[in-house]
């Protein structure tokens, strides 16, 4: 049976924790609003890009398509780009992305493929290095970045394209969490190289005029498309992270509230019990006289 002082201390410590989780929840909510706005602002560019690319790709026949679009014909070495957060305390956000990546890694390894991993974000790296340290070729640290801009995505894209051109891998897949709502983030795997192009609105294959020529436009458009896809993944991830953190902290605050309620009740009961006991002692003492 804990003493009254123990109970008091416990209540005070839970209250302090609750204050912290509450503050974190509010910070996450504010950041979420910003991240969501950024993710939404980036959507038109990405979808336009996809439409333009789909249009172009439709006009290019199979064999002379650039490697970035159609792949290099092999699928022996896979590069997995795993985007996670730099910070924890956001529920299952990081682990669900890592779980998806891990499933893919295991199935690829079982099929006898070579796997290389590029980690964006510290948390994913920490979880993956336990089992797959020798597969990890690079870690991109975005901790110093306060405001995600297209520049970061471009930097990662340049790295990926450089590796591809050196023949370091054949197929690239991007892992991130798609933001659907505050309570629902969907871990997603998206093919990056070869490019995964939706059929788009296609159909309107008008005779386009290109300036400079088709191949040249495509060869500058494709690297840019990769940067855009990565940028979108990073933004969606940022929004998802804040969303996940917000709901995780909301839960934590609620749990702390419940705990405080229970402990306070226990405290009051034992205080009452003590008073009653003392009264009984006094009364029985008086009766004995």
């Amino acid at each position, binding site marked *: 049976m804990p003493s009254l002082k123990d109970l008091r201390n416990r209540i005070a410590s839970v209250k302090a924790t609750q204050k912290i989780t509450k503050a974190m929840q509010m910070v996450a909510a504010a950041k979420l609003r910003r991240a969501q706005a*950024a993710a939404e*602002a*980036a959507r*038109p*560019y*990405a979808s*336009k*890009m996809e439409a*333009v690319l789909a*249009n*172009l790709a439709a006009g290019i026949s199979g064999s002379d398509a650039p490697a970035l679009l159609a792949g290099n014909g092999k699928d022996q070495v896979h590069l997995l780009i795993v985007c996670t957060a730099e910070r924890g305390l956001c529920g299952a956000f990081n682990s669900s992305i890592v779980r998806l990546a891990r499933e893919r890694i295991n199935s690829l390894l079982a099929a006898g493929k070579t796997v290389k991993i590029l980690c964006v974000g510290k948390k994913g790296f920490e979880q993956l290095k336990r089992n797959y340290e020798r597969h990890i070729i690079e870690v991109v640290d975005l901790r110093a970045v306060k405001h995600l*801009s*297209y520049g970061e*995505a471009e930097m990662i894209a340049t790295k990926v394209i450089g590796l591809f051109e050196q023949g370091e891998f054949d197929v690239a897949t991007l892992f991130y969490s798609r933001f659907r709502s505050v309570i629902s983030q969907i871990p997603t795997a998206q093919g990056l190289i070869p490019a995964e192009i939706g059929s788009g609105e296609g159909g*309107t294959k*008008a*005779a*386009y*005029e*290109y*300036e*400079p020529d088709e191949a*040249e*436009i495509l060869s*500058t*458009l494709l690297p*840019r498309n990769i940067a*855009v896809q990565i*940028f979108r993944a990073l933004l969606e991830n940022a929004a998802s992270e804040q969303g996940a953190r917000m709901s995780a902290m909301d839960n934590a605050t609620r749990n702390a509230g419940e705990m405080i309620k229970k402990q306070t009740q226990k405290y009051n009961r034992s205080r009452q019990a003590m008073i009653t006991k003392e009264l009984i002692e006094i009364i029985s003492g008086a009766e004995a006289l």
Partner: protein
Amino acid sequence: MATFPFELVSPERVLFSGEATQVVVPASEGEITVLANHAPFMSALRSGVVTIDNGQRLFVRGGFADVSQAGLTVLAEQAVPLDEINPEALSGQIRNAEEDLRDAKTDEARTRAQAKLDGLNAMMAAIRN
């Protein structure tokens, strides 16, 4: 005059979306003016100024212009309305970029600094005109 749908988007936001009668785009091989019912056309962009018929002028760097039946879409790597650029802040940034270029130690850093400086200089030239 006939209008056509025009959209100017950068990765970070949509800068213009609406009807226009005439848009001047700095294509890689010279400026082109797009009017309604332009034939399908696609071009890379160089750094320069997009002028919309209502007098709006925007600086764009890198990207593509795509003309189709659905109208004109400009996908710019970077796009800023000219009246949002502050010449003094810009010349400060140019000085910083020049310094970065001098301090750059690796080739990679040097090319990055040079690219940044070129972009800023193009922006400066755009305001002067």
